[in-house]
């Protein structure tokens, strides 16, 4: 089935056409479900519910949406709603089950990639984030947001070359090497080779710049 223009879809939703709902589901349900499951490791049933909530938000908030630049604005708007829903889901899971537990099983494998100190630094950031999110959920007035605990990571990323930053950020979200290649101007083959090295470089910067995160 051919893809309908976003402007038509938005028009249908804004004017209450039933067809708009059908088109929205056709266009986004499987796509977002795949992303939630594959990229963000959300279990199938939770992912279905999450995607339903995303599309419901799109329908209920459609009157607040306006095209400002291009037809693609709508897609970015939907993706922002999706990102926020996945974030809320992850925070909720963290409060009920804990984030770090999911990495215990792969820890041995990762120990080969990173030194024990480097691994401990990353664990430390994750634990701090986890603790801050728990505090946020208990006290609404808390000014110390969970996201601020990721500042160390952001600062370390800033020490990398621009193309290295793009490579790490995009690969963490499963963007194909070919697309990163088009953006950075480096060949996909080179990016594949350098991915693991750049990861090591980032972790090294993290442990050097933040000695307080190292285990005592």
């Amino acid at each position, binding site marked *: 089935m051919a893809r309908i223009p976003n402007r038509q879809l938005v028009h249908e939703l804004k*004017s209450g056409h*039933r067809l708009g*709902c059908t088109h929205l589901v056709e266009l986004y349900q499987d796509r977002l479900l795949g992303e939630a499951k594959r990229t963000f*490791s959300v279990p199938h049933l939770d992912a279905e519910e999450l995607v339903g909530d995303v599309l419901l938000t799109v329908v209920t908030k459609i009157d607040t949406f306006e095209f400002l630049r291009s037809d693609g604005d709508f897609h970015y708007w939907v993706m922002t709603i999706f990102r926020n829903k996945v974030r809320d889901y992850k925070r909720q899971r963290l409060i009920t089950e804990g984030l770090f537990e999911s990495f215990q099983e792969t820890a041995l494998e990762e120990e080969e990639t990173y030194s024990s100190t480097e691994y401990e630094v990353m664990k430390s950031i*994750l634990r701090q984030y986890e603790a801050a999110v728990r505090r946020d959920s208990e006290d609404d007035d808390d000014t110390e947001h969970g996201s601020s605990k990721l500042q160390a990571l952001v600062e370390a990323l800033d020490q990398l070359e621009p193309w290295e930053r793009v490579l790490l950020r995009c690969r*963490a*979200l499963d963007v194909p090497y070919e697309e990163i290649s088009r953006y950075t101007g480096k060949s996909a083959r080179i990016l594949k080779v350098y991915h693991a090295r750049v990861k090591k470089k980032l972790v090294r910067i993290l442990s050097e710049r933040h000695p307080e995160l190292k285990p005592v």
Partner: protein
Amino acid sequence: MNQDILDFLLQLGYLEGRITTHGLYEKSVLRKQPKAVTSLAAKRTLVQRLEAALASAGKEPGAVLTVGLYLRSVRQEQSLDVRELSTRLGLSANHYKLVERDRLSPLKVPADSWQKFIRLFSLPFEVFEEMVRRTHRLVYFRASFQTTLARYDGRKSKTKRSVTLEQAAEELYARAHLPVPPEEEIKLHLLLNNIARGLKQT
């Protein structure tokens, strides 16, 4: 996807809005070919949920569902030309205008033009079928409606006349819900079968 602890931290950074991919991730999502993982029943349930949300937002779902009204609203929204759309549908401009004004029975439009219509607007077949049925009823009852229209049209005052004409139009569209005689149903059924078969073959 193989994910290590660093990738997971980077993902958290993205979700928390601390890092960005300059739109590359969002674009890549659009380029990926999604696998059909949702059952038809689950899709239908979600569509119904969304329609209910539209209705509770004060919008009447399915309010505009004749071929003419649909074509007109899409053409105005996308600033398309009559000639452009008629060419894409394989109709002459005059023929197209009649379709857009709901003046022509869907039975008089060739099946391959309807197939082009479905593909152009990515219409699910059941939605298209409902649209065509309603248009057919509308055109079928229009003749008997002429007398009602004349009654409304007889008003001398211009403002009263326009108000009553609007009422007449509403009445006419309301009649598009009435059942048509069985022989008309059979003709429509044959046309829809032809269109569906053509779509399957291509």
